[in-house]
């Protein structure tokens, strides 16, 4: 009974962001990193699952040296173990390359019943790594999960509620499964001082492409079919108009302007 949780380190949205315009990749070293907000829910769900079903939980992150911070945080929260996938040839991987490397790590951990992930990352913002990962591993894809109703590790089944357009879909899936979670599924806890102290001293195991048996031509910048070719700042919206005057006049003016746009019928 093993649960893996994939966490990504992302730049704080408020931070100043620097790009390597030559390579079209982020200069991740230059920015304040945080745990991807959705992945905090994934970690919490993994911990709740551990407490309820007495399974083991392993956290995985792929990223540069600094990505170990998010893993250390997971250790402080109480996961059983962590793995840091780090290899120069992985830098610049597109979503497929990322999913491919995560899949290799999950196979190496072995006997993983559930992979928990966030619904999307706030930097890549693609939300496609979970679906790709499930397809690569042949696991059941269960995305946008708002609630895990029950897990039957012996019977290899899980029942979840998925938040999709128009409502909630209740789905039973076979295990192993990839489960991506949305905000509101739980309230992530904070690490306590003892956890932080313990985690600070722990060794973070690193896995390279060779350790994972990854063919280098499948991953990294050179292998990615999708490539960033240009980065630009979107043109500023034309200067807006602040309506001034008495409330009655302003409301009249705004209502007319909006009706002129012919959106309101």
């Amino acid at each position, binding site marked *: 009974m093993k649960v893996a949780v994939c966490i990504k380190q992302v730049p704080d949205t408020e931070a100043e962001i620097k790009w390597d315009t030559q390579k079209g990749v982020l200069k991740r070293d230059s920015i304040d990193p945080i745990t991807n907000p959705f992945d905090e829910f994934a970690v919490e769900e993994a911990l709740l699952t551990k407490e309820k079903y007495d399974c083991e939980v392993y956290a995985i992150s792929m990223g540069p040296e600094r990505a170990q911070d998010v893993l250390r945080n997971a250790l402080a929260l109480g996961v059983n173990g962590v793995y840091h996938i780090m290899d120069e040839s992985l830098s610049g991987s597109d979503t497929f390359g990322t999913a491919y490397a995560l899949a290799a790590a999950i196979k190496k951990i072995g006997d993983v019943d559930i992979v928990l992930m966030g619904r999307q990352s706030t930097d890549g913002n693609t939300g496609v790594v979970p679906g790709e990962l499930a397809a690569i591993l042949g696991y059941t894809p269960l*995305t946008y999960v708002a609630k895990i109703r029950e897990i039957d590790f012996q019977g290899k089944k899980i029942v979840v509620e998925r938040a999709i357009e128009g409502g909630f879909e209740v789905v039973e899936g076979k295990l192993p499964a990839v489960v991506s979670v949305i905000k509101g599924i739980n309230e992530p806890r904070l690490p306590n001082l003892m956890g932080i102290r313990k985690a600070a001293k722990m060794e973070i195991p690193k896995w390279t492409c060779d350790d994972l048996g990854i063919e280098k031509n499948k991953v990294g910048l050179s292998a990615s079919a999708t490539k960033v070719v240009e980065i630009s700042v979107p043109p500023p919206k034309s200067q807006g108009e602040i309506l001034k005057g008495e409330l*009655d006049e302003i409301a009249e003016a705004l209502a007319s302007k909006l009706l002129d*746009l012919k959106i309101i019928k």
Partner: protein
Amino acid sequence: MGDVWVYIEHREGITSPLSFELLGIGKKLAQERGGKVCAFVIGENIDSIVKDAFAYGAEKVYSVTDPTFKTFRSDLFSKAACGLVEKYGPDVILFRSTTQGTDLSSSMAGKLNVGLCADAINIYHENNVLKMVRAAFGGRFNVTVANERAVPKLVTVRPKAFEMPEKKEGQEGELVKETISVPESDALTKILDFVKSAVTVNLVEADIIVSGGRGVGKPEGFALLKELADLVGGAVGASRAAVDSGWIPYEHQVGQTGKTVKPKLYIACGISGAIQHLAGMRTSDCIVAINKDPDAPIFKIATFGIVGDLYQVIPKLIEKFKAKLGK
């Protein structure tokens, strides 16, 4: 072959016009490469969807019907879709970046060993290379992604990023019916139930959104926003601050950790305009900000701004709209 395929999403045979929105941009991309714009539909009873796909401009429609495809399940639909792709070899496949479009495209990408460009806000060919523009870091940057090699090239597109194609009733094209059936025992999932949400208007599809933030101050305030939204035919959105305060459910949250929306009109009431909120709505066509703080950052991206108390401004606006709309 430069064929461009468009996935037509539906829920058990039910579509909205937006299900067909990508046939417009699909046609343009196909013409740029001398190919055809084709729709593909998977389901159980989909005859009327096929008809509508032609009406919205599909030159060819691939349809796969089987009882196991009654409800969307990405594990099964992606098998059928990959089967079609392997047989007919499209150049580009477009999906909407809804939950269904994202599920299907990502499953296909994993199965077909190809990358995927997600949530594009613009797509075009340049020297025969497919380029996609997407917003990054809360829309502070636009990133252009090129896809030179993948076969096929999978792209998900932000809903409402392109003009709706015109619907011409009775327009016809070539229909290709494929029989692909997957035994139910192969299915990894079983749908047990669908609980309709209490939210009547889907935020992502709405043309008008009236959104409230911490400035609304209390749960009852959202009733006022709802009144305005109902009057103008819109949906109600919210900032994270309002959601976290428990005034309105998470389903309404707009922003980096909520929904990304692109309505024609976004009315932000009592929202300061934090970068994470802007991430979800800055590509809206027209933005109206109502805020009592003249220095609130939301005014920087607003098309029209009103500095004032929303509890005075909104009732006045409602009054004016009622008079003008004759309601």
